[in-house]
């Protein structure tokens, strides 16, 4: 599957990278779970989201291969991503001020 574009071939990461990323993802998930058990008060949510953001960046870039794609895909993805960030921020105006 990964060999699709021959001109991108040298960018395709090997299975080793995939396994490392997978382990990192599992590690981050267990951190999220552990952190949820500690009472961080207001910033607990921010920590959870921060870890989730790192995880999705890894998945999007490596597993979904965006890192090796043309600029136009990155632009469109960035637009959607920024929309999501703005939506999060606006929701926080509610959650953090109730």
């Amino acid at each position, binding site marked *: 599957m990964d060999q699709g574009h021959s001109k991108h071939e040298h960018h395709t990461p090997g299975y080793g990278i995939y396994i490392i990323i997978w382990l990192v993802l599992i590690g981050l998930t267990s951190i999220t779970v552990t952190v949820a058990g500690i009472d961080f008060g207001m910033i607990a949510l921010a920590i959870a989201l921060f870890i989730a953001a790192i995880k999705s960046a890894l998945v999007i870039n490596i597993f979904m291969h965006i890192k090796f794609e043309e600029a136009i895909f990155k632009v469109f993805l960035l637009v959607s991503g920024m929309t999501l960030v703005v939506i999060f921020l606006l929701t926080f105006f509610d959650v953090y*001020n109730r």
Partner: protein
Amino acid sequence: MANGVIAENNRSFFEESTNRHSGILSWLLTTDHKRIGILYLIAISAFFIVGATFGILMRLELIAPGETLMGPQTYNSFFTLHGVIMIFLFIVPGLPAIFGNFFLPLQIGARDVAFPRLNLLSWYIYILGAILVVTSLLLPGGPVDTGWTFYIPYSVRTGTNVSLAIFAAFVLGFSSILTGLNFVTTVHRMRAPGMDFFRMPLFVWSMYSTAWIQIIATPVIGITILLVMMERLFGIGIFDPSLGGDPILYQHLFWIYSHPAVYIMILPAMGIVSEIIPTFARRTIFGYKAIAFSSLAIAFVGYLVWAHHMFTSGISDTARWIFSFLTFIVALPSGVKVFNWVATMYKGSIDPKPPFLWVMSFIVLFSIGGLTGLVVGSLATDIHLHDTYFVVAHFHYVMFGGTGTIFFAGLYYWYPKMFGKMYNIKVANISVGLFFVAFNLLYFPKFILGYQGMPRRYYDYLPEFTQLHLISTIGSWIMGITLILIFANLIYSLLKGAKAPQNPWGGVTLEWHISSPPPLENFHEIPYVDHEPYDFSLLEKMKNESH
């Protein structure tokens, strides 16, 4: 069907199909964007008629206080079904799926959309979603009674078929996303040579902005629905406070989709208005770029205002004033459009044919709807008006008076092009007039009722509201007659109407350069575009094009 004028020995798309089948199969397996547009037209009109029937029956129940036609449980199911059908099956898919499919490729000089098979698939997904909605009525448990918003916690606890109904909304969302993907790609990749972004007709701009909202916003409702299912089926606490969830989170997620969705409903309508006004005023549009960019601005700011539906739900004060402020900002790009349309008509040579009359009635009704939106967008007044008939009046003015009216405007504008037949102009003029009267009789009293305190979603009311409710019900009867007139005129002309010429209104965008109905692949030769979309000096030259 042998229809209409045929260009240069060429057959129209009715007579030639993209597959080797004939009859009904040639339609059900078609990949022709025009045929798919017509398939959508048939399905969506059918659901509109069903939804309107529910509305008229509800009005009948409300003709007098007390139970007249149906009890509370039936009424609850009626407004839910009416809302679900009108929103998910009529107004969200409506204009993009019918007119976007049919005219987007024509207006940019393409032979089809970018992914014709995907296009057919999205029609099938739409039909599947519709079947699920209908099934949810018939299964034991009974029709949904939550209102079209499916608010938590009630929607988790009611015994009615909520799971199936929201799953239907989930499926319909995919149809919407696929259509959006198709249109974005089509606009980027399939424009005729010379057709740069600023030579695109404004309808194409509006479809482009809409498509982006469909792609980015629709997944949110999909995820929300999955979460509700997890809660209903497995008891995982996400929204229900008794399970440790947060019911306001549901409202956030629901409106993060559903508010942008109201721009999915209105932007295409604004695009069609921007087509019709120049054609009938014989003038190029005033402020082309302002209109084009205000579509994008509306699409963008539309993401930032969702919580104005939640002012009374217990969200924080900070959030309330921020969202109220942002709501007022959306009024700006909408205002830009209305002023530009009016300025286009100024000193134009106006030809008041039915499509133009529909647009005039749109401008009045939509402005009333938009301005009362500011009333409910202000914090103080919304506390009083939230969940009253004022809101029911407001959203019917924007959705029905706005997009619904333009559904008819678009139909009456492009019908001769789609079917190659002309309807009865006189009857059409009468329908517009009747529609305007019926509409205001039906909905204006609701503003007053709401202001006086009549809550929405009740089958019964206090005696002092009787008179206004009666007026509204009488309005619903005239509306029913008008709707019959509107559709009967078109169906009659399909069977018996005169042939329509290639360019009945004197439009100049690309669809008027080809025969009515268009040939299978639209253009014998892909046109080269070297002028603005609304350059009426072209009309002289176009006279020789007609066949």
